[in-house]
């Protein structure tokens, strides 16, 4: 089962990288071979170039959506936060100064929007997940799921069980590709705090993956032992 989980994750990852735009889908300037910097696109948009904003938006929309979705575990909330973040970016386009990486700026806005949302609702610390993926796993039995979706569901459940600060740090690291230093800036914590949060998150997720794979591997173990040659 462990080998199956690992294989399914690997295959899914390979397909996912091909399917997901993520950071590989970058726009290129006309007649140029280097992608236009995010900050330059934002400045062009501030000057009235809507096409520049669309390019910028296509670069970051999916990763930002996943970030707010995984943080909130609720698609409606994620949609609201997503629109709120981009609305703030649009409205503050004239005040934008490329003093830092645009991704840092974007995710700082998203982080603050989520924190405000949590303060308004105060239900995200232990709130129930409203992610359809997670609901499907609880409603349907394991037999109805493919191994890939099972692994996916288990991983997302483990992610959802993380404390919100660790989840935030992990998501910033994975979705926004921020370094620990940048995560510290976005979340407003010291560098060491961000680093330890990321380490704890990774360890817990790794442990959850091992725990999920553990009983299955135990169940598979006798079969493998039976088939192996005696010492």
């Amino acid at each position, binding site marked *: 089962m462990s080998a199956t989980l690992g294989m*399914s*994750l*690997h*295959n*899914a*990852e390979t397909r*996912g*990288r091909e*399917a*997901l*735009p993520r950071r590989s889908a970058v726009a290129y300037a006309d007649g140029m071979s280097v992608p236009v910097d995010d900050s330059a696109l934002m400045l062009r*948009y501030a*000057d*009235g170039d*809507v096409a520049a*904003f*669309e390019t910028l*938006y296509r670069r970051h*929309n*999916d990763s*930002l*959506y*996943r970030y707010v*979705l*995984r943080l909130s575990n609720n698609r409606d909330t994620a*949609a609201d936060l*997503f*629109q709120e973040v*981009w*609305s703030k970016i*649009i*409205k503050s386009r004239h005040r934008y100064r490329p003093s830092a990486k645009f991704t840092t700026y974007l995710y700082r806005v998203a982080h603050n929007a989520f924190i405000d949302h949590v303060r308004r609702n105060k239900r995200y610390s232990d709130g129930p997940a409203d992610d359809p993926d997670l609901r499907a796993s609880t409603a349907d039995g394991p037999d109805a799921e493919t191994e*890939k979706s099972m*692994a*996916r*569901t288990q*991983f*997302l459940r483990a*992610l959802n069980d993380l404390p919100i600060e660790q989840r935030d740090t*992990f998501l910033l690291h*994975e979705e926004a590709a921020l370094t620990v230093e940048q995560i510290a800036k976005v979340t407003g914590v010291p560098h060491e705090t961000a680093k330890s949060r990321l*380490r704890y998150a*990774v*360890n817990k*997720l*790794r442990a959850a*993956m091992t725990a999920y794979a553990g009983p299955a591997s135990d169940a598979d173990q006798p079969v493998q032992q039976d088939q192996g040659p005696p010492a």
Partner: protein
Amino acid sequence: MNQQADNDSKLVADAYRASSNEAAPETLNRAVLQQASRVTPTGRLATLYSWCRPLAFAATLVIGVALIYDIQNALNEPEVLTAPADKMLRDTVTPPRYDSQQTAAPAAPAAQTTKPTFAKPQRAAESSAPEPITSKPSAAVTDAGAGSAGNARAKPTLQESRQFAPQAASRKLEMLRSDADSALVTDADTDACAGTYTESPERWWRCVQYLRTSGEPSAADTEWRQLQAAYPDFAAPD
């Protein structure tokens, strides 16, 4: 130890990427992009919008400079300059009151002894300092007053004067209605005794008036007698 942590991190990252592959819904994409294009002016409006800030700055600058210049001019301008304007305003208002008395009561010559005050606009414009209003009446007013008061130098009788009194009042009213008219009369009086003024009885009469108002009554009388001799049919206008 670090390599183990890196391996764990890579494994977890791969698992996450395999598990989370949602994309933003197309409805959200459309909404955000529409908002982005809606708030951004396009075409000519964009060009106008780009000029808004410098234009507003320039307009503010121009208005500010003009305001400061105006304030400085107002501060440097002597205060006495406003006085003649007030006097001129009063002068232009005062004579019609006199004329109305004349018109309303032509048969009361005693009430007309009060001489109207009438400042010439030209003099007011020439003098920068405020001056007391001149007490010299205009020629027409003086003549009318003299005729109605029975001045011995005036040739028309009292009855003739009474007959001409309403006409004189209306003429004076016309003269006083505008400052320009008054200024023209003044210029004509000044040049009345120059050149071939004796060829026309009206010009000669204006010369007589000018001499009287300029403080030469004997010369005026002489001229008046010569005028009567030369033009016996000439009736002195009131």
